[in-house]
């Protein structure tokens, strides 16, 4: 039985396993909606996968199991260490890598399928089939190389700053244009096999060039977007193989990636086109010499600890700088110490805190901070006017009040955590250097702001010590 009949002339047993798998996948995502049922969701997903694999392995078309078993074992041998050893700070890289693998798998199947059709079932070479196949290969290979670039940027194998050159967008559009042209040509005339490999190569090159100009700050959006592409390519593969379960699973993934990238774009007040073609971080035109020396108030750990333990409510706003300084566990100790003193400690999490959607929550959960103390931006903002101290650790732009009122600021319009509405503000920071986007933060110069200069881990550790000695 040829591969394209994966669905329409399937043995009844296999069809049923695929149906069951589709239901389990849907339930899996449904149960993920809250922490109490989430692990059940994973179990449902695993079950669905196992059932679908079992249903596939009994197909009569399978001639030999030797290579299937070898590659399945190899995949397991690589997958288990990745899952067990990846540190939580590196989950974004791992996620990008898996998008890359997903794209590669889909692209490979697409290429093989195209040549198999030519070799033995030319009747399958309809315009629709070839068109969808081209879409599958384009999305698959673009995701493959684009995600590898994202991995390299996240792992800092290549510079995280946007890499731009003159006429970049023109070149990108021309490349994409050529790829689409080749795809359309193939769709119109499926017998042009010679065009197929250049088409696949074009998709890969475009993936690299697409990610090249995107800076580190935009990584959460890009990962989500590539997630969507990976899902859609799997869905296209479902069309090519006429397999409905594949369409469902791929589409769910595509929808998820799409929603996450929309959330990320909104959280940065940017459009898709702006993320992909705007090269954020270039807007830093004003030199550091231009700004006048404004005075700031600063304090030592003991003084800050004194203030913190005598107030009644504290909101901690963590940014990725906290994770870079490996300060999560010290922050947890601070949380414990203050809670013991009767201080109400909450965490305010900006959607783009971290390197991928939801990343900061994972980093704090890893440090054993209870998840019911983690508040989203929209939930914490109404609390801030009633808060005694907002403590900012390793975050910058997401707390900059300029986003609300300064129309000339590059981050104007970006939703922020309104830390300036708290009665007082503390900022742990290495120095007065401006943040990732190179924008000055007026928060630091406010009268109610206390700057706490130092390494986040050391400083929080010192505060914990001061509180402990002070009972």
């Amino acid at each position, binding site marked *: 039985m040829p591969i394209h009949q994966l669905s329409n002339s399937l043995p009844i047993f296999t069809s049923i396993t695929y149906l069951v798998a589709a239901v389990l996948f849907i339930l899996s995502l449904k149960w993920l*909606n809250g922490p109490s049922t989430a692990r059940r969701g994973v179990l449902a997903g695993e079950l669905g996968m196992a059932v679908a694999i079992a249903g596939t392995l009994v197909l009569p078309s399978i001639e030999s199991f030797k290579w299937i078993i070898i590659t399945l074992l190899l995949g397991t041998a690589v*997958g288990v260490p990745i899952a067990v050893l990846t540190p939580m700070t590196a989950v974004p890289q791992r996620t990008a890598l898996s998008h890359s*693998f997903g794209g590669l798998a889909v692209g490979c199947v697409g290429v093989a399928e195209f040549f198999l059709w030519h070799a033995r079932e030319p009747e399958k070479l309809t315009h629709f089939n070839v068109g969808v196949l081209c879409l599958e290969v384009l999305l698959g290979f673009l995701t493959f190389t684009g995600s590898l670039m994202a991995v390299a940027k996240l792992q800092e194998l290549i510079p995280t700053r946007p890499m731009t050159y003159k006429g970049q967008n023109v070149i990108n559009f021309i490349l994409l244009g050529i790829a689409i042209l080749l795809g359309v040509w193939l769709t119109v005339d499926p017998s042009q096999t010679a065009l197929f490999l250049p088409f696949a190569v074009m998709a890969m090159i475009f993936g690299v060039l697409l990610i090249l100009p995107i800076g580190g700050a935009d990584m959460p959006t890009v990962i989500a977007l590539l997630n969507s592409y990976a899902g859609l390519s799997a869905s296209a593969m479902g069309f090519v193989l006429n397999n409905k379960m594949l369409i469902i699973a791929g589409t769910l993934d595509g929808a*998820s990636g799409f929603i996450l990238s929309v959330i990320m774009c909104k959280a940065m007040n940017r459009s898709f086109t702006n993320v992909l073609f705007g090269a954020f971080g270039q807007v830093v035109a004003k030199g550091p010499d231009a700004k006048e020396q404004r005075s700031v108030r600063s304090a030592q750990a003991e003084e800050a600890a004194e203030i913190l333990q005598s107030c009644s409510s504290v909101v901690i706003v963590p940014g990725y700088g906290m994770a870079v300084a490996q300060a999560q566990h010290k922050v947890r100790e601070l949380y414990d110490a203050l809670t013991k003193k009767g201080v109400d400690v909450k965490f305010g999490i900006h959607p783009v805190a971290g390197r991928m959607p939801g990343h900061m929550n994972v980093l704090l959960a890893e440090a054993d901070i209870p998840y019911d103390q983690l508040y989203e931006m929209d939930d914490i903002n109404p609390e801030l006017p009633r808060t005694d101290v907002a403590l900012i650790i390793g975050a910058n732009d997401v707390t900059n009040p300029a986003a609300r009122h300064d129309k000339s600021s590059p981050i104007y319009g970006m939703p922020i955590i309104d830390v300036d509405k708290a009665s007082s503000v503390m900022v742990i920071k290495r120095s007065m250097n401006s943040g990732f986007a190179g924008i000055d933060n007026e928060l630091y110069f406010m009268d109610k702001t206390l700057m706490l200069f130092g390494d986040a881990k050391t400083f929080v550790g010192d505060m914990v010590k001061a509180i402990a000695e002070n009972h």
Partner: protein
Amino acid sequence: MSSIIENLYIFVLATFLGLEIIRRVSPLLHTPLMSLTNAISAISLVGSIVLLGEQANTLSTVLGAVAVFASMTNVVSGFLLTDRILKMFKKREPKQNANSPAKQ
């Protein structure tokens, strides 16, 4: 042709279903959401297995082997990692609430 239309129906319905389900996922869990959907979309594994198992010619067998390896890696690491992340999410223990400020 009819199967194409059928598949388009499935695609459209799955899109709406996906948007509705995913919208309800708490932002708290967006990272595990991404690794779970990743593992689920690695169901392309079934297509790869059939391709590899057919052993039609060298090209398709080699591409099939790459595809099975890549998808299986995603399946295994995706589900295990998601579970590892979710295990870390804990609620505040109730007794911590009872710990009044008076207690040293």
